[in-house]
């Protein structure tokens, strides 16, 4: 049987083939060729698109260059969501590669956060990690870490170094043996259909009767609409990292193995494709 550790690797090394094209209205000096890239699912758009930026800046006039942003089929892509999440939410049913349009003009202030530098991403990432740990361990673990450990987490993500990241991150995944899991499961549920960006609540991995909660339990509790009624037709897909775990999967296991580097379990609920 394959080891659970392999899941971590699979999750980490998930890649989305992407084709970047420059928005047609952007003014260029010469024709901008599309740029193909394998994007790490667990990373952030602005963190891994230096090459894209360089590529398109070459064909543009210096004065036209302002902050880069990305859009897919009219939706501006939030850089502060993990790439895999964006893909699953918006484009999981479309054909690969994922076609992303690159913009330099008219930054959608309403939809997107500015990302002037990588420090911003780091700050966002670390705050996610801390928030997750607050849920999991009342922030005990993250607070006990040294600054360099925090840095190592971030550098691991930035440099796509699995070992480097997990050497620290495993401490965040531990819990005392006498308990069955974390205090609360840090999760976020994203739905395309609602206005709310995502749902998050306090949810314990273990029920009061010591039963391990499953993914189904979670959804029933926080997002009943996502779960198909017993007899009803399945309307939604529950996706994590591009896969659909069965609802019986224990939440704690999911949490330990399918979390994003920011320590959150990002669950997306998307309508069942009509096929």
């Amino acid at each position: 049987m394959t080891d659970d550790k392999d899941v971590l690797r699979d999750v980490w090394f998930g890649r989305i083939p992407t084709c970047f094209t420059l928005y047609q209205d952007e003014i260029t000096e010469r024709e901008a060729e599309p740029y193909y890239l394998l994007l790490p699912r667990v990373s952030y758009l602005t963190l891994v698109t230096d090459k894209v930026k360089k590529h398109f800046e070459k064909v543009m006039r210096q004065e036209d260059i302002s902050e880069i942003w990305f859009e897919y089929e009219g939706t501006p892509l939030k850089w502060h969501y993990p790439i895999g999440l964006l893909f699953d939410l918006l484009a999981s049913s479309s054909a690969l590669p994922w076609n992303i349009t690159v913009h330099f003009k008219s930054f959608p202030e309403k939809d997107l956060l500015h990302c002037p530098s990588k420090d911003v991403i780091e700050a966002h990432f670390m705050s996610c990690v801390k928030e997750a740990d607050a849920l999991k361990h009342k922030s005990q673990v993250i607070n006990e870490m040294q600054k360099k450990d925090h840095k190592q987490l971030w550098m691991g993500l930035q440099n796509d170094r699995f070992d480097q990241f997990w050497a620290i991150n495993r401490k965040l995944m531990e819990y005392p043996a006498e308990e069955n899991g974390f205090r609360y499961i840090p999760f976020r549920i994203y739905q395309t259909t609602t206005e709310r960006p995502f749902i998050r609540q306090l949810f314990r991995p273990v029920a009061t009767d010591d039963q391990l909660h499953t993914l189904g339990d979670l959804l029933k509790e926080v997002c009943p609409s996502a779960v198909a009624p017993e007899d009803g037709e399945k309307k939604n897909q529950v996706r994590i990292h591009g896969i659909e775990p069965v609802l019986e999967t224990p939440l704690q296991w999911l949490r330990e193995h399918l979390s994003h580097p920011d320590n959150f379990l990002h669950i997306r609920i998307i309508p069942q494709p009509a096929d």
Partner: protein
Amino acid sequence: MPSSELWAVDLFGRVFTLSTAGQQWELCRDAQLEFKRVSAAAPCCWGIACDNQVYVRVGASDVPIRCREEAYENQRWNPMGGFCEALLPSDRWPWSDVSGLQHRPLDGVALPSPHWEWESDWYVDENFGGEPTEKGGWTYAIDFPHTYTRDKKWNSCVRRRRWTRYRRYKSRDTWAKIPSEDDPQQLPDPFSDLSVGGWEITDEPVGRLSVWAVSLQGKVWYREDVSHSNPEGSSWSLVDTPGEAVQISCGPHDLLWVSLWEGQALVREGINRNNPKGSSWSVVEPPTSENGILHVSAGVGVVWAITKDRKVWFRRGVNSHNPCGTSWIEMVGEMMMVNVGLNDQVWGIGWTDRALYFRHGVTQSELSGKTWKAIVAGRECDGSRAGSLSSLLSAGCFFGDEVRGGGESRVPSDSEAERPGPDPERDVEVAGPASTPAELPWTNIDLKEPKKGPRHAAADFPEGTNLSSLALLPLGLEEPDSADCHALWAWVSGGGCAVEAHTTLKWFTAHSGLRASMQMLSLPITPAQTAAWRKQIFQQLTERTQRELENFRHYEQAVEQSVWVKTGALQWWCDWKPHKWVDVRVALEQFTGHDGVRDSILFIYYMIHEEKKYIHVFLNEVTALVPVLNEAKHSFAVYTPERTRQRWPVRLAAATEQDMSDWLALLNLCCCESRRVHGRPSPQAIWSVTCKGDIFVSEPSPDLEAPERWLPCDQMFWRQMGGHLRVVEANSRGVVWGIGYDHTAWVYTGGYGGGCFQGLASSTSNIYTQSDVKCVYIYENQRWNPVTGYTSRGLPTDRYMWSDATGLQECTKASTKPPSLQWAWVSDWFVDFSVPGGTDQEGWQYASDFPALYHGHKTMKDFVRRRRWTRKCKLVTSGPWLEVAPIALGDVSIIPETPGAHGSGPGIALWAVSDKGDVLCRLGVCELNPAGSSWLHVGTDQPFASVSIGGCYQVWAVARDGSAFYRGSVSPSKPAGLGHRQQSPGEPQPEPGNCVSPHGCAAPGAQGAGLGLWHRGGLGSPVRPGQCHQGPQELIPGDGRQAQRGAGPPQWALEGGRCPAGDPQSRLLLRPLPLTWSRTGAWSLPGALPLGKRAHEGPLSPGHPQTASALPPKEKWLWGSGWLCLDLISSQSKIRKRGFLSKVKEGVGRLEISAGEGRLLPRVGRALLGWSEDGGAARGCEKLSKCRVRVTVVGPQPALPLMGLGAGGSFYIGSCRRGWGGWRPAERGLEASARSRALGRHPPGSPTPSGQLLSCFFFFKSEKGPIWCSLKLASHSRTRCPGVIGAHVPSPLILRWIELTASFPGVPVRRARLCTVLWCSVCRPEADSKEVSLGSPPEGHWREPVASAFASSPGGGTGRRESGGSAQAKQVKGRVGGALLSVYTRGCQVSPSGHHRFFCGSALSSCCDSLVSPCPLSRATVSPPCGAPTADLLSLTEPSRFLGCFIQ
């Protein structure tokens, strides 16, 4: 940790047991017996039944309780009739006991009770102190009370021999009635209370139990002679008491408390090892005068009591020195009785509710515990519910409500095993309507409603309260049932119930019971149910990767792999001046190479003379990372091939343990990554342990044998596994067993990591807690002086008065520390009585002066004495190991490879010797169940020390007295072989039951030459070449002789036949006659060849004078040839002069040599490998005064390479060929033996040996550090024999033990394969031109093990041999297992199928020749010439048939 059991009696007198691992009471079924009281110890339980009789129930075990009865037959010589039974009137009886004082005719020896049965009939014991006697087992003396010798001398006037017979205790796992006294006066009144204890004070080897009882009249009785070999004891003896006793309690150690009618307690004083009955009573007053003591219970250091007002009291300050304690403390609760069990844990029965309570929180520091917790485990009364609850729980944790009712559904399946496995369909289907749940194994129906139905249906089960499941139900429903089915208890005994602080018990509530089981099941691998979702996730991930990545791999990666640097501060051992730890900065740089392979460099920056410098290590060159936890520092050593050669590993130390394991895990991960070693080791992996108990594993590359990809052994990468073992044994099918220092057997679970490897370096499942216990010994030395007697004041020249075993180190009780930081003391110092050589009653051993032999009794000439103190220390770690309970092992051996069975076929043969010396064979071992199922006990005449199974089911064993045994007829179908005793040569023996039929088969010539060529028939069907060429040529010089035949079948023929052509030497060969072989079989002893030839006396290396005291090179090692793997140890470097392999008087077993200080611990063994320690091994080894030798005979070569470690730490190698053998120090390279001809007899002018590697004999380590190996080369030239040379092999590690292997290509042994590679690496000239000089005359060589027929008659078969067939070639090269080897044959032809067929002549003897030949034949199957189906070699009984050997 193995489960143990709590015993209890309910109000109806039924006895129940509750396992520490279980959740349900199990009824102890027996023939309608009802009990009043029980008292349990680990191996047995005593009880008083309602018929007022005492019963003992001895637990079933795979090891029988056997007891030897013996009688001596005495004879005196008289001039008329020689030796006869007519003795002088003043003599002893003709049949007597050993002292001669008691008449003991054979038929007068009766079984002590009906619970015993005879195992066999009387037979003569021919083993005299480990040596075989001559015919009939007689030993001779001048007169009767005298020293007996095995040789008859001119003045031998009397002789005697010993008859032995075994009886076996048969009433296991059943209540055996203790026979009441014959004399009714003795025991007038029935017993009212009984208590078992005292096993700690007379632990091994005595193993006594103290059984105390109180009779109705208030008298106290003691049962004499209760021990594990005599579970019933012999008689009751009265112990006077000052008052009328009511109740008695005996602790596991030396506490004995009695409660009296008057309310006081009596405490027995003076109980010790030599006087388990104690000497006097003292009275302890009750806590309050108005309420006397009703009940007491004693533990190791605690006493609990109940007074008449039902209050519970704890006695403070109780210990061995003050058994009365100091004062009473009142505890909470009202109890009817309390019982103190192992580890001072306490159980009680509540006064009001009669419920069973366990005292929670009892630890060594808090003996009184914290709270009473009720045990509400369910009771299994009809057996059908055994597995239902657990299956419910395993299902329940993932299915929530749905399955919760399952426990009530009267699951029909008996056990977990029968429950349907992972069945995804079931998961879906179970959502059916609420039908009768009884039919369903378990359902997801909410059973809250129907649950009452089934329970009421269980009419045969009135109190069938599955309490743990009840607790899940709403209270209202529960009450009516639980009221009348609540178990009411009368008595409880925890004397056999081991509960430790960390033990998780599932007894208490259903609630916590459920949680406990869930914790276990939350391991994703255990519950079958998880497989569905888990499998889906794995599958989907794979699909996702496929979908999203497969067609886009040419895309650019978004993130370029960059360099990652981890830095930190460590300490580094500066190996030059100033030779100390210096603070360094270290940095690990990890980068990705162009080929995508990660690589890493470790930089160590240090300052020397104000100058910044650094050293660096490429992690892809690292061969081993060895944690070194001594010197109170958390350090580790980093080895690379280069540094191994320089003997200078990089040693780094971290400030904390956590820091060290972080670094170690990270470095290990990097190394593994760069070597692409991942996950669980392959079945072919090579396992080893260090002398510190660390476990390492090396992965052989798949193309090991490809000659172009030789891997030098110093470049083997060793990866650490978690856990702690003393011995590890692996076979090529992935079955790995180990033995801890505390003799616990462990089996490898298939995980990796553990120990200090956490996180990614460790697998999530299959890692379990492992603990080990080791003893630390110190010696108290005293010298006698005329005035004061023995005092601790020695002469100025004497050793320290508190010292280690050698006397060189001072070791006081206070200053002695556990071996390393991992260990913690778990006991106090105590006197050790189980010292080799025996002790007196206080543990002293006497000697005339200090470095001398110690004996256990004082004589006039003794001026010094010493005694050994022991303290136990314990280590707790984790690793991929599971305990194989319950039998502790001393040695284990796994068949290297089951021939021809890869991934299938029969079970894997695994043999072991228990720590008590029983030989055991494990049944049911296979890849899927490496732990096997049960032990099969193999009866022996004496305790054994070591066992070894080689290829082709050759089982050899060494007894504790040094005799060697071979086990016949072991095969997959008969895993334990046949027969069980040693047979003397020559004479027909009395028929020992159904064991062996009398027969004899000694050739007179062989006898005349002193050869005991013994066999016992029954070597049945697959007689292997190893046995076949048993008869050495040297043994019968001159004419061939016909064998003498024994009386009845089966028989062996000894056939001496002069080979007509070319070979002047006669042969002796064993051949089974075509008879039925099913009946017989035996241990046979082919060894003991006291031959006249002197062993080679090798000159000692002048550079190392200390080796002079090492293994005496004059000693001979003599034994027969065969496939033999033996482990011999002598604690005093005493090698026996003649006879068996070795005289091992004491300290047998795989003796611990290097307790603490010794660095170098050789273990020379059957198949490769040696192991390691940090850099300082060479320094420590001079101190070794003990010797361990392992002898190995492998493969069909007649020469037996063997190895020994001298006291000076130097290695000796030796060879034994056809009966002679010799030692020479290995230090100077294998010096040429005068008698060895292998190389010396090469035709003059012939080139030095070169050519293809044939095999490797062994590796050994010289005291200087370098590792040497002996090579055997197969030359291409037909006329030249394969040669053997020695070569230096740089090794990454200092060997701890070395295993020896030889070409054994008959079976593709992985060890041999490995050796081949190691060899090859040495052979390769460019590997290290300085050290391997194949071009120059070798420094030494082995006696070439090729049959001398070939050596002496190059040209091979002539004459008749060739006439056997259409010979086409004299020699054929074939490939066996990938290695080219030369085959010498008498003749050859190519069969129609393309195989080479070898005709070995017309006689079977010739056939044996070819098997003795250097050709390690692969599957030496033999076929009749006409192409009929291949037959087993030796089933071919017609001597005139052709034999063919297929080289595949």
